[in-house]
């Protein structure tokens, strides 16, 4: 950084990032390296902060619902659902039970596709590309069903304040049934491939450890917290939509795989088991789908007029695939809400990277960073700046190559 005059000395500073294609906020990492080992980590998000909350505070709630769809490309329903639930509480809008069930079904399909997407990314980070293709191939089934139900693969636009915008017809049911049967048949195979593979175990077991206490103190949520043994699942703890009628238990790493250790491996187990749980929930929702309306008010001008008059504040909260997603909304009798605060799931999970990455090797960085599921592949571009030297840029491919080489080394050592 000083034009090559200063001597290179330990620890080396390794910045990674900031561009990561799928995270809401791309993250710039700076590692202090001692040889191959990470000594300390610092990160700076916010490279594509789009000011969505600022935009929302100048729009009416119906416009914001469609804005929330665009907060994240993968969490297509959780943000709109959280926001709609907050506004519904302020306006005391009773959502028809059928709409609650359809919201739940969509919520779970999203979890299936998100977890499978993650499983594929994790496999790719490890250099297990055939598994990556398999996971993403399998994911297509849920994407097709989502498209069938909502009309869109992403940005579903199914949630409206007071209900959902599309019903599930009787013609669609056999399709959904077929999709569920497909996943049920595949799950054992997926579990076998992921959990009985010695290479995956070598790369993931005891790497990226997050202790129970750290998970609590750093406010980790979702599968990241559950893998560390923190029993926390909004669907179980805090009833919303159809979950108040169902029996959803938080998935913790079972004792047969060595109990909750809080490593990358446990995060894989939790997510795989949650896919099975989601299938069960969709099945229960389909069986008990109540008849009736799907919207509290079909006419948008009437809905907007109601929302314009209401005053108050509320929290809308759901369990996103990555953990709790929360929106705080305050309305003061104007078109636009006075305050809208979005707390996405990754917002709470980012701090967990610090203890996870400490003491790990550079080649393990991709899988550990990906293990909290920051949406997609972890590192897009890496620049290595040795102290005093000019920056050497490491591309994502090179970092992935490092990770793949480590896998190969381990296989040879076996």
């Amino acid at each position, binding site marked *: 950084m000083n034009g090559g005059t200063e001597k290179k000395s330990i620890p080396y500073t390794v910045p990674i990032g900031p561009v990561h294609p799928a995270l809401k906020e791309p993250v710039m990492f700076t590692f202090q390296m001692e040889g191959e080992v990470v000594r300390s980590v610092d990160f700076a998000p916010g490279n594509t902060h789009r000011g969505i909350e600022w935009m929302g505070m100048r729009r009416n709630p119906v416009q914001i619902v469609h804005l929330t769809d665009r907060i994240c490309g993968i969490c297509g329903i959780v943000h709109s659902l959280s926001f709609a639930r907050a506004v519904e509480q302020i306006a005391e809008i009773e959502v028809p039970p059928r709409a609650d069930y359809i919201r739940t079904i969509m919520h779970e399909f999203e979890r299936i596709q998100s977890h499978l997407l993650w499983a594929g990314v994790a496999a790719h980070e490890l250099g297990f590309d055939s598994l990556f293709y398999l996971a993403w191939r399998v994911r297509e089934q849920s994407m097709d069903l989502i498209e069938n139900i909502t009309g869109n693969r992403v940005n579903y636009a199914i949630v409206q304040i007071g209900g959902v915008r599309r019903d599930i017809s009787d013609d669609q049911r056999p399709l959904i049934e077929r999709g569920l049967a497909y996943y049920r048949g595949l799950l054992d195979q997926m579990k076998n491939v992921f959990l009985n593979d010695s290479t995956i175990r070598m790369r993931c077991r005891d790497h990226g450890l997050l202790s129970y206490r750290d998970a609590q103190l750093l*406010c980790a949520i979702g599968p990241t917290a559950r893998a560390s043994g923190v029993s926390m699942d909004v669907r179980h703890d805090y009833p919303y939509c159809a979950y108040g009628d169902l029996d959803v238990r938080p998935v913790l790493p079972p004792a047969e795989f060595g109990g909750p250790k809080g490593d990358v491996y446990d995060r894989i187990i939790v997510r795989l088991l949650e896919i099975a749980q989601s299938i069960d929930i969709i099945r229960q929702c389909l069986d008990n789908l109540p008849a009736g309306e799907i919207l509290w008010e079909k006419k948008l001008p009437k809905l907007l007029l109601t929302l314009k008059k209401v005053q108050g504040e509320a929290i809308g909260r759901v369990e996103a695939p990555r953990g709790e997603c929360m929106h705080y909304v305050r309305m003061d009798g104007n078109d636009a809400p006075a305050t809208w605060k979005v707390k996405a799931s990754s917002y709470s999970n980012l701090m967990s990277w610090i203890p996870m990455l400490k003491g790990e090797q550079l080649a393990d960085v991709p899988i550990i960073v990906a293990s909290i599921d920051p949406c997609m592949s972890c590192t897009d571009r890496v620049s290595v700046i040795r102290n005093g030297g000019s920056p050497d840029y490491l591309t994502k491919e090179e970092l992935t190559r490092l990770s793949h080489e480590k896998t190969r080394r381990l296989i040879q050592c076996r």
Partner: protein
Amino acid sequence: MNETPHLSPREIIDLYKTEFGAGILDARITERGEGTKKTKSHDIWLRVERALLRPAIKKLIEIRFPHFAVIAGNDLGEEIELLYIFSVFYGTKFGEYMVTIGVKLPKTDLTVPTITDLIPGALLSEREKQEFFGITVTDIPDGRRLFLPDDFPQGVYPWRKDDTGIKPEMVRELWTIGRPKDRPVPPVPEKKPVPEEPVVKGEEKTSGGAAE
């Protein structure tokens, strides 16, 4: 951690009232039931005196270590209200409550003590409040900007509704800028802008667009 047994929302509020008395300015519970069984979820809203922020959070930790979600903020004109949003009793079947602890800060003195010594995970949220509301968090272990870029002007706080908020000249409407000129031609020709557009008011009914 000394853990108290599971309490009802009312009992939590009673605990706070006996401990802090008149320091609790407002306390209420909201409920919400959804689905067919309408199982209730509970939110607890506490407004406390400014000096009681940390004691109130310590009290919550004493009851059960909470999950810290986020700090939300309201610009109320003369004051900024910070809302520390927690949830307690996670892991209990339908027994988790959101607990929101709110404090008001006058705009003449926007300082608040850090809570990162109690809950380290609150750091990101505190950094965010510093840059978006212009609040000073005293003793914050890391006071850098979080989301805003380094070249963002100093003294502009996006979530404020007074003159320190985003200035109109900072806002660029996409429709006034148009398509970048150095890109390939789009496959479908762009529509010509309708000249009558600025005349349309909210009250006037114009045909088109609302065909469904």
